[in-house]
């Protein structure tokens, strides 16, 4: 297998877009292509990650459309739909193409325009990833699954609402340093939890999760350029290698899991990614986790191996996951505050980590970051892709 490098990364600001879907993807693509400075090196393939285009934007065959919009013919083009893990799945497809020698340069783009529909329709669209016979038809939504998960996790491991609030406050603070983040609004413990007004400021969404425990509904696009070693060596700038990728699945219906608090797919995907990268969790300097709900950042950081089970909330209390802490988690603001355009999220995580490893993350730069980890969490943990990136010195 040939080594694969990320030689360019770019994204749009997440939030609300008035661009057509393909133009939004095109904007992120051009940013990544500019970042890579490929010159006359051709793009061999284009992979587009998207979850809802056919349903909420009435557009299919996005990769073909993007190739046309960017005049990248005759590049191979394909789209990937894998729920909220679509982004990392698309990167995996691009990785395989380069690693196998089928392509030397692949553009991978994640894009989603969720604000094209109202909140109720958007929530229903995302809920369609749940089990159709035992979850969806009973009105299960992702916030409700996360609420049940949070209640169980809290009772078993002593996690309290203040720990969830700490995750939200941290990620909002990080997003203040990220010009691409959806939410630029600092929040405080008093404002969202301890003041009498917190009940209005931070209303219950799905017990015990409140408004500020949930990611916003975002539009946005993110793109990376993958290249073979030969190409990467011809380009300037620091080299970021995709050192490891792992994927694992779990039962579709959450209640069928022996222990629903055990994010088995995160654990197994991470173990595979670390084994492939010949690394261990303790080697990681910066991580992007899939915090669609605050409880998930806590649970994923344990399942990925950064903390023992039931210990992550204590590390959060100690400030270890803040910028400047022992292991900064979600320096971008995470899904919680950078935003969560579902198909784009997995790519955006790698954009942020590429910038971190290249030393280009401006005010939120993690000093001396050389190894990075991302967890793209599909479904409610039933399809997870973990990625380990490593900076290679020239």
């Amino acid at each position, binding site marked *: 297998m040939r080594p694969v490098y990320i030689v360019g990364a770019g994204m749009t600001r997440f939030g*609300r877009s008035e661009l057509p879907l393909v133009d939004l993807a095109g904007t992120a693509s051009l940013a990544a292509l500019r970042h890579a400075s490929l010159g006359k090196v051709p793009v061999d393939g284009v992979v587009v990650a998207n979850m809802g285009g056919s349903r909420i934007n009435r557009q299919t065959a996005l990769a073909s459309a993007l190739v046309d919009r960017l005049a990248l013919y005759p590049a191979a083009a394909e789209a990937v739909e894998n729920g909220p893990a679509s982004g990392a799945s698309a990167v995996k497809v691009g990785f395989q193409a380069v690693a196998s020698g089928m392509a030397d340069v692949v553009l991978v783009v994640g894009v989603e325009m969720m604000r094209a529909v109202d909140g109720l329709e958007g929530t229903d669209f995302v809920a369609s990833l749940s089990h159709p016979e035992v979850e969806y038809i009973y009105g299960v939504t992702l916030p409700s699954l996360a609420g049940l998960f949070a209640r169980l996790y809290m009772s078993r491991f002593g996690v309290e609402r203040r720990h969830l609030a700490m995750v939200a406050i941290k990620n909002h603070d990080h997003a203040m340093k990220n010009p691409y983040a959806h939410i630029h*609004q600092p929040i405080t413990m008093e404002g*969202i939890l301890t003041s009498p*007004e917190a009940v*209005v400021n931070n209303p219950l969404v799905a017990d015990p999760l409140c408004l500020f425990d949930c990611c916003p509904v975002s539009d946005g696009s993110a793109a990376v350029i993958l290249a073979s070693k030969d190409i990467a060596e011809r380009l300037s700038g620091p080299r970021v290698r995709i050192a490891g990728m792992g994927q694992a699945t779990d039962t579709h219906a959450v209640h069928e899991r022996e222990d629903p608090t055990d994010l088995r797919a995160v654990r197994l995907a991470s173990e595979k990614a670390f084994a492939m990268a010949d690394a261990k969790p303790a080697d990681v300097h910066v991580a992007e986790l899939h915090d669609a709900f605050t409880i998930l950042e806590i649970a994923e950081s344990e399942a990925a191996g950064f903390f023992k089970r039931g210990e992550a909330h204590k590390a959060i209390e100690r400030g270890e996951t803040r910028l400047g802490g022992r292991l900064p988690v979600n320096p971008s603001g995470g899904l919680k505050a950078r935003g969560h355009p579902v198909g784009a999220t997995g790519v955006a995580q790698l954009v942020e980590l590429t910038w971190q490893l290249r030393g280009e993350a401006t005010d939120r730069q993690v000093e001396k970051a050389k190894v990075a980890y991302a967890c793209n969490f599909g479904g409610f943990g039933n399809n997870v892709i973990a990625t380990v990136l490593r900076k290679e010195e020239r």
Partner: protein
Amino acid sequence: MGSVTDLEALLRPPAMEMPPYPPKVVTLASGEEMVVRQVGREEIPTLLKAIYPLLLVERDYYDIVAARLYAELLAYKRYRVRDEYVLVGLIGGVLAGVVNGRLVDAKVGMSYHTMTIRRGLRVGSHLFAAKMEYHIEHIGQEDVLIVAESPIGFRRWMIEYPLEKKYEVQHELGGVPSWVLTRKTYFDAKPRLVSGRRPVPAALLAGAATIRLPGDDVVKRQVLDEKGGGR
């Protein structure tokens, strides 16, 4: 017809006695303190300056709300609407939002508009709640007639409280069928949606004595950009 003064008396609606709205302070999600207080006619020109740049902002129906609110505030200032009141939210003295309404009669109130200038902190939710608090608890009314012009408003008022349909009544805002907040609905919702502390500390109240405007560019940025841009 007699003098100009006589004509003005014919044009000017009669006024009912309204108790003042006692100011309160609420802590926002950001930790900032927002003072909610009533404004008089002398402060309306300042509010008009804040609303003016939003007349052409289509996003989230700001244009129609701004246009109607502008007219309502002007009518209040110039005595061409009956029994109107205006409340503002001020963060560090800077305008964060405006709400207004009026009395239909002693028992029934009518909500006009809720305009949030500082977004993402549920300022509109706090100010709308203050408006309902004024009608029900301070004026002592039984019902408040309400409509929404935007989906955001519909979610905040009709669904969150929740309001009841009162479609047999035509609201003044375009004759749209009304919804209603009753005393019972208000007190049922109060623990979830109505907050704030009184009295407001003297220093905070003094800081909110004069309305400061955030500037046109800041207003547009806050309305368009704070929640993720509009490109």
